[in-house]
């Protein structure tokens, strides 16, 4: 094995139409197009026996093996919704004799959360929050922490809209050191906690995922990182009603995702309730509601819709 591999970003260029044969399992994959590339390796859309798959390939066999190990253990968690399902793991030797490792997984088709929300409105924020927290809770329950939770690792699948994780490479066993992270989403970088894998680590990144929606260019931590985060959370109108929960998550005050999920669901419920009660007592409070009611009606409506979509997404497996 190559001992002194200097560690460089080396993108493998596979041309559409090319095919590769697995060294061990002998499957033949036809490359269709490139889907993207990350810190380790590139992902391609490919076809095998008439089915489409996503194929991740890299010359870093070590990291690839570690990612496959994670995918395999996630597969053991009941249900299949945590991350894409794994189809094949193999090596490919080029005609020049260079060895690459690759693995093949379910191809998830969808769009980024940012583009979905841009088209469908911020009513979906609450839905996605609940969906993500539900998945995180299941992951944490099984002894894992996502680690590198970020917008790029999430995809919204359509009908019904459902957030899914597409890259689980950073998933780390609870109690260990986080394997992979991105500075903006990392609480260690913001000085808000350790890099030990625990549920609160993911919940911090969770908040940053939603901040990133509204600050796509991200922002710097400055001399007082904590203040910057609070200011940014309060700055976004669409996140306003969740801000108490988001603050708590940033401070690491939630012990579990379930706890945070409950509070967010409650917030949504209350927002909806105030909306209906303000309608009933509308006459007596005429003067005050005159200025307030449009906002309340709007947010209330949004949450009714959000709750409806969330519930319907639960019904359809």
């Amino acid at each position, binding site marked *: *094995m190559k001992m002194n591999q200097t560690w460089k970003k080396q993108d493998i260029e596979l041309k559409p139409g090319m095919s590769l044969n697995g060294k061990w399992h002998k499957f033949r994959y036809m490359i269709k197009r490139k889907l993207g590339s990350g810190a380790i390796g590139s992902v391609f859309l490919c076809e095998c026996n008439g089915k489409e798959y996503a194929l991740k390939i890299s010359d870093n066999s070590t990291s690839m093996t570690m990612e496959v190990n994670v995918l395999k253990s996630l597969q053991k968690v009941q249900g299949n919704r945590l991350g894409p399902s794994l189809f094949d793991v193999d090596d490919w030797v080029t005609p020049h004799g260079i060895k690459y490792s690759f693995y093949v997984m379910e191809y998830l088709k969808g769009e980024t959360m940012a583009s979905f929300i841009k088209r469908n409105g911020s009513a979906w924020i609450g839905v996605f929050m609940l969906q993500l927290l539900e998945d995180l809770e299941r992951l944490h329950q099984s002894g894992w922490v996502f680690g590198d939770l970020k917008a790029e690792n999430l995809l919204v699948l359509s009908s019904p809209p459902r957030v899914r994780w597409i890259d689980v490479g950073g998933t780390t066993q609870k109690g260990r050191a986080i394997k992979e992270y991105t500075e903006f989403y990392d609480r260690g970088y913001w000085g808000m906690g*350790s890099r030990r894998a625990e549920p609160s680590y993911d919940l911090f990144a969770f908040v940053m995922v939603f901040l990133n929606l509204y600050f796509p260019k991200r922002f710097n931590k400055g001399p007082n990182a904590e203040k910057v985060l609070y200011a940014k959370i309060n700055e976004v109108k669409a996140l306003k009603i969740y801000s108490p929960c988001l603050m708590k998550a940033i401070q690491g005050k939630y012990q579990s995702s379930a706890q945070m999920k409950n509070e967010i669901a409650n917030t949504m419920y209350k927002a909806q309730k105030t909306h209906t009660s303000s309608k009933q007592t509308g006459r007596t409070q005429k003067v005050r509601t005159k200025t307030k009611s449009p906002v309340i009606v709007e947010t209330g409506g949004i949450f009714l819709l959000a709750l409806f979509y969330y519930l319907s997404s639960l019904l359809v497996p």
Partner: protein
Amino acid sequence: MKKGTLKQILLITDGCSNKGEDPAATAAIAYQQGITVNVIGILDDDQTEEPEGLHEVEDIALSGGGVSQLVYKQSLSQTVQMVTKQAMTQTLQGFVNQELKQILGPKQSMEDLDPEKRGEIMEVVEDMGETCDLEVLVLVDTSASMHDKLPTVKEALIDLSISLNARIGRNRFCIYSFPGKRKDIQKVFDWSPKLDAISTIFPKLTSGGITPTGPAIREAMYQFGKKSLLRSLRDEDEPNVEEAGY
């Protein structure tokens, strides 16, 4: 099974050595002594390609059995911790490979195994990486051109300590700078489990003119043996304190 301690030198520099023996040669000696040498070359913002002077970076890491990486100073933090972890995995994998060769014959290495077996072995390597003890000697180039990069280096080292201290295994760091006054290297920060305290020391670093990378690595090598007897005795008395909680 007794857990071993991994020893690493992390060299952070921005240029070519210009005094003393070949740094690649001293790195090779260190590697022989069981110390891995990793090198991070910092690029100036206007440097686009690999500059001549930084070719050395790869050579040193190659003969030192470690990992090398060229970066702009903005991404130094993440690089420092990734290089350190990558080198740990590489070293441990090297050990495992040696064992495999003894069991399976000289021509077998991990990559000749099928992906399933490889996965199982990687799990072991990962476990070892998480639980083994680690000693990192940081060797910072403080020649004149490094002056404006030192604050970033400081940030990156504090960040490294955050990352590594999230592991289950124990860590120990120390920092040396080179060139020293009248010596090849100068102690900046003595062996310690954390690096949070370095904020106060770093601004005092003075920049010198020459870059004696080779001699610096040679001197750094000896610092691993120099830990006081008292300390090593004390460490033996408290076996795996951190482990207890897991």
